[in-house]
């Protein structure tokens, strides 16, 4: 006899449960958490450095560094006196809620206001996993091309803000920045777009101001 067993369970369920616990923990410390995603080499670490420089008077900021291997980025940030914890995924192409919960156990968050999670460089998988963040933010560097929102829609859909980085290179490349913005806005009409250059510092102020406002809104709600 054939028996039907109802399971009706999402494969994301366990991850989402842990993400919710992480969220509760961050809320209990009144911490704002940004999950920063991009392809490898788009400028996540450089943007984090710029963001911290722009906001350090206002907020105490910590970084959770996700990489497949190595601690190059964490060392770079620690040299600047930024509290950083390195997570090595050991091959996995994204961070998940469980890895962040391990960071929670091994990191002293006291006195911090803002945590930036630098996800593993990848435009696909990081968008699928909640880690307990307040918002997802993505970086696309201008040389990656204006077709990327169409090719990797989920990340654009999930992100509250898009930083188009390396705009200092625009005169030398064929990326059509207006088409890029149009493509991103079609997929996510509410996405906030900033044109930045971590190299020259252009656009960082606008992005930092917006983030500051978001943090203030959130903290007002707690």
């Amino acid at each position, binding site marked *: 006899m054939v028996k039907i067993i109802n*399971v*009706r369970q999402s494969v994301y369920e366990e991850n989402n449960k842990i993400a919710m616990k992480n969220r509760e923990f961050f809320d209990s410390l009144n911490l704002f958490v940004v999950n920063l995603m991009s392809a490898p080499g788009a400028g996540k670490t450089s943007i984090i450095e710029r963001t911290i420089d722009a906001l350090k008077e206002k907020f105490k900021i910590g970084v959770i560094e996700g990489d497949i291997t190595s601690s190059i980025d964490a060392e770079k940030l620690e040299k600047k006196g930024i509290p950083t914890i390195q997570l090595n995924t050991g091959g996995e192409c994204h961070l998940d809620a469980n890895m962040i919960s391990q960071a929670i156990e091994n990191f002293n968050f006291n006195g911090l206001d803002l945590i930036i999670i630098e996800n593993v460089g990848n435009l696909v998988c990081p968008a699928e996993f909640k880690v307990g963040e307040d918002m997802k933010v993505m970086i696309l560097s201008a040389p990656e091309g204006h077709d990327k929102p169409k090719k990797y*829609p989920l990340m654009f859909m999930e992100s509250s803000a898009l930083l188009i980085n390396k705009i200092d290179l625009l005169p030398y490349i064929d990326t059509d920045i207006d088409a890029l913005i149009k493509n991103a806005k*079609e997929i996510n*009409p*509410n996405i906030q777009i900033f044109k930045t250059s971590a190299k020259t510092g252009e656009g960082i102020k606008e992005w930092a101001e917006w983030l500051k406002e978001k943090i203030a809104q959130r903290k007002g709600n707690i």
Partner: protein
Amino acid sequence: MAIHIKIGEITGFNPESIQFYFSIISKGTIAENAKLIMEIVPSSAKCLNCGKVYSIQEKVLICPYCGDINSEILTGKDVIIETLEVE
């Protein structure tokens, strides 16, 4: 024996890959030779302005009825193990 799985269209899950890895990891377990019956769930969204539900064509999240840009994704973003058929 069969496992029914619903795969959202806008997830990174791919039926061919699930089948490939399932056949490897199920070897030697009671799930070996279980049939995977996978269904792709089309993506849809509900407009937060006019309330109409529309399918997300070309991943564009703009309401085709009223043009509003605020929508909530209803389906297509989850992967659900629905039922097991066992003997």
